[in-house]
């Protein structure tokens, strides 16, 4: 006999919520899911009225659900936000090109403006070329480091106030475990925060932090959202794979385990005597960094000099001993300095507030006025 919904006691229940164990019908599930995200946003005061918010959109299920829910909640509760889709094109053929098509369809479906920034444009290297130089192992390091910075660059190009990403509860739990396993104390302290400062100018938050991946998939499926579901063509990260499998096994034993791990992570306290890295800015590109040169610049430098292991391997022998290939492996684009990007963002803001249209940039090179944001 079909069971009734535990909430409305009327319609037929179609899903058992892993977080609460309740059996709920479709409409109650939508309402509960959306209300929980709304509560997360309101309780943590993630946004202010009038903020320009960039939704990190990959075309996958998490970011598609995030974009849809943000748009719905913005209208339902009148947050007064200006929403944008912000996509990063890593340059992975057979994967990203297809998923970006999905994002473009989302742009039309939800009526949100879309900005795509590519690794090729920002750094002069696409992931396909990086994999050619680095090999199939360790290339996720490049992709992850570049993406983090690329999102901030994209946000400055659009003069956004805040970026939201589709990290879900499973992702956060996985990251907590990974940081314990790797002994990454500074990140262990940071990874549970719902909002991080980013580079000090643009905040970042995870409104789906308490939403189970299972529910996100159900939501996307039941709402018939248009999303892209293929794994990256380059090798998945083996270490993360272990943690992911463990989380899935845990969920099978006790569904509340995922939220329990997040609570554990939030409650952990780093001992007072432990040395933590001090945030400073990169001497080359001006991005926030704990070293004189940020990770992205160090990796780029390695790529340019033909010793891609520089900045990836912990062993100094790999970097010192390997002879630099003559001429390096590629001709890079010098990444635009963050200071210039910020100036440009400020100029855009002034023009917007003053009602004037921003001046179009038509002169690449020395005469460029847009810090590479338009003319490239």
């Amino acid at each position, binding site marked *: 006999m079909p069971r009734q919904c535990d909430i409305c006691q009327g319609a037929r229940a179609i899903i058992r919520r892993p977080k609460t164990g309740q059996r709920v019908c479709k409409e109650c599930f939508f309402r509960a899911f959306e209300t929980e995200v709304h509560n997360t946003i309101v309780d943590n005061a993630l946004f202010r009225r009038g903020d320009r918010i960039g939704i990190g959109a990959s075309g996958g299920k998490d970011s598609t659900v995030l974009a849809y829910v943000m748009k719905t909640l913005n209208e339902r509760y009148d947050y007064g936000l200006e929403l944008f889709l912000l996509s990063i094109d890593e340059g992975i053929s057979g994967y990203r090109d297809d998923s970006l098509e999905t994002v473009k369809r989302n742009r039309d479906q939800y009526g949100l403006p879309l900005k795509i920034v590519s690794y090729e444009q920002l750094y002069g290297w696409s992931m396909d070329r990086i994999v050619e130089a680095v090999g199939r192992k360790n290339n996720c390091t490049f992709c992850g480091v570049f993406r983090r910075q690329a999102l901030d660059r994209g946000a400055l190009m659009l003069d956004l106030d805040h970026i939201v990403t589709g990290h879900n509860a499973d992702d956060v739990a996985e990251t907590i*475990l990974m940081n314990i396993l790797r*002994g990454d*104390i500074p990140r262990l302290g940071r990874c549970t925060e719902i909002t991080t400062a980013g580079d000090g100018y643009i905040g970042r938050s995870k409104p789906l932090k308490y939403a189970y991946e299972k529910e996100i998939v159900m939501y996307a499926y039941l709402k018939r959202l248009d999303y892209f579901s293929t794994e990256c063509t380059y090798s998945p990260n083996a270490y993360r794979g272990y943690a992911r499998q463990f989380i899935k096994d845990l969920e*099978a034993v006790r569904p509340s*385990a995922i939220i*329990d791990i997040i609570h*554990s*992570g939030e409650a952990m*306290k780093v*001992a007072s005597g432990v040395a933590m890295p001090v945030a400073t800015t990169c001497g080359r590109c001006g991005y926030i960094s704990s070293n004189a040169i940020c990770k992205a610049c160090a990796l780029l430098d390695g790529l340019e000099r033909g010793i891609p292991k520089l900045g990836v391997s912990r062993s100094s022998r790999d970097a010192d001993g390997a002879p630099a290939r003559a001429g390096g492996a590629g001709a890079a684009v010098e990444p635009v300095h963050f200071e210039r990007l910020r100036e440009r963002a400020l100029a855009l803001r002034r023009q917007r507030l003053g009602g004037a249209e921003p001046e179009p940039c038509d002169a690449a090179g020395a005469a460029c006025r847009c810090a590479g944001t338009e003319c490239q």
Partner: protein
Amino acid sequence: MCDAPAMPAAAPARTRRTLVPNKCVKCKSAQPRVAVRQIRYCKACFVQASVTKFRTAQSKVHRPVGTKTMVAFSGGAASSAMLRLVVDFQNAWRKGTDAEPPYAGLVIGHVDESALFPDVPEDAIRAEAAKTGLVCEIATLEDAFALDTPVLATVARGSDTGSVYAQLVGPADGMSRKARLAALFAGLGSITDKEDMLEIIKTALIADMARRSGCGAVLMGDSATRVAVRAMALTSRGRGFSLPLDVGAEAQWFGRMVVQRPMREFLAKEIAFFNRWTGQQDATVPGFATGLPKSVSIGRLAEAFIVELDRDFASTVSTVCRTLQKLEPREEARTARPCTLC
């Protein structure tokens, strides 16, 4: 003019340990028989290195002056090795010298789990403890209902905490303690909950024995592997706030009593080799998840996860232990009032 040789301007640079290919890293002459964290030892050097490591760590820790130390002994591999190392350390102290003995007094604390697990070789375990010649305190699991301090019984006396709790944990008429214990565990649905309850009862019993025999410190035999596994399991059960208390190298859990975990310097593998090569007997102490697939409980799952990961990434266990050392308990965990039920 002083003719003493001038002090070197700077400390000499650290040199890498010279390695003889295919020989023990210490004596450089014998065939290596075991590799621990990619370092290869021969039999004799491995045992010696283990003893030295244990004693060095033990001589650095602080124990309340003048109080006895309780060695928690389950009969399993890790606590057997710990008992042997502790007793040897104490016996190695030369009487008549000025130096203080390592321990002001030693007592063994053992919890008899045969009420739940009839297969435990209880006689062999007790015989092993008796061999040391130390006083051995023994509590059975069903004694949990007879404790005067925190566990279960206090609430049942109709204390102000509420009659609901009293009913919850109060004895049914004419029920033996053993039957109550069986009923308690039968009432717990999942193996995870059973493991949790067993751990709570055992910890309470050991703390009680230590208190009654006047011990100021308790040595628990959690190996590094065990510590990493427990850290994962506790995190997955939402107990991250008290991790440093539950699995830290040194913790003040019960008022002024210090709980230390000296075996967290040793991997489970090291302990197995140590016991084998020193002829130390150990028993297999079963648990609720013994012999069952990994998906039966969070504890068993965490064990499988850490063991598998450590096989592929050799430093996993030691990294987790190091991470735990850098955490401290939240104020709430320190000042938390004891749970009404346990």
